[in-house]
């Protein structure tokens, strides 16, 4: 089932994950069933995934995140917004993000 997200909301990493930049890679460990389980599944993000993750601080809307990325990537704003939204939905579906109460 697809998670719901919108461009005017802000999101923040969930308390149910631990994320660390290790040896040049962002590694995210889900604390599934109350265990940090690197034997089971861990997540990594590519460079552009990290660029989004690093901006999800709970105070920027996804639209603002896409605008910031527009200054760095040669891609139309509409496409950036669509990609950011799709990526955030995927992270929400995996419970790696939560919606922030404030924007």
């Amino acid at each position, binding site marked *: 089932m697809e998670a719901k997200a919108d461009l005017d909301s802000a999101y923040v990493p969930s*308390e149910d994950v*631990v994320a660390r930049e290790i*040896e040049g890679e962002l*590694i995210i460990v889900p604390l599934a069933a109350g*265990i*940090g389980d690197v*034997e089971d599944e861990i997540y990594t993000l590519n460079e552009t*995934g990290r660029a989004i993750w690093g901006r999800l601080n709970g105070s920027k809307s996804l639209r603002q995140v896409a605008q910031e990325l527009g200054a760095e990537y040669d891609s139309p704003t509409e496409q950036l917004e669509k*990609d950011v939204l799709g990526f955030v939905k995927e992270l929400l579906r995996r419970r790696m993000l939560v919606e922030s109460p404030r924007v």
Partner: protein
Amino acid sequence: MNPREFDPSLFVKRGEEHPLSGTGLLELMQAVLGKGVPFRFQSKGLSMQPFIREGDVVTVSPLRGAGLRVGDVVAYAALEAERVVVHRVIGRNGRDLLIKGDGNAGADGLIAETQILGRVTRVERDGRKVHLGLGPERWLIARLARSGLLWSYLLPAWQRFCSRTGGPQA
């Protein structure tokens, strides 16, 4: 402008597909245990044989203020090498712990309690819980390890027995 394509991706990996260095494992373990949550990972090395073997899946739990006892298996941060070591407590000296790998001839030395990351609470082999080594018998294992009997006599005898019979397994 970044000429590369904007293509955010998430990769899902299993532990064996993503081996971590000693420092990487230490950093992740500290972060997870710091949240009061147990940490589960696949062990490497032979120093805790036969009770923990290469490839066993080890769960380390936060201490949560509970005192450590002789016989407990602990994960600690080896500061000189910045890596995680999983070995057994075989004695105490004030606030320091004397620690040794069951399969090692010599002890690691005295380790400050502040270096202890957590206690090993579960070991799994081939998807099944390993029962021997963390229960009440751990005190006896520690005494034998400290006396040198475990390494010089009992472990070789146990290994000969297992190789002849194909089990029982620790």
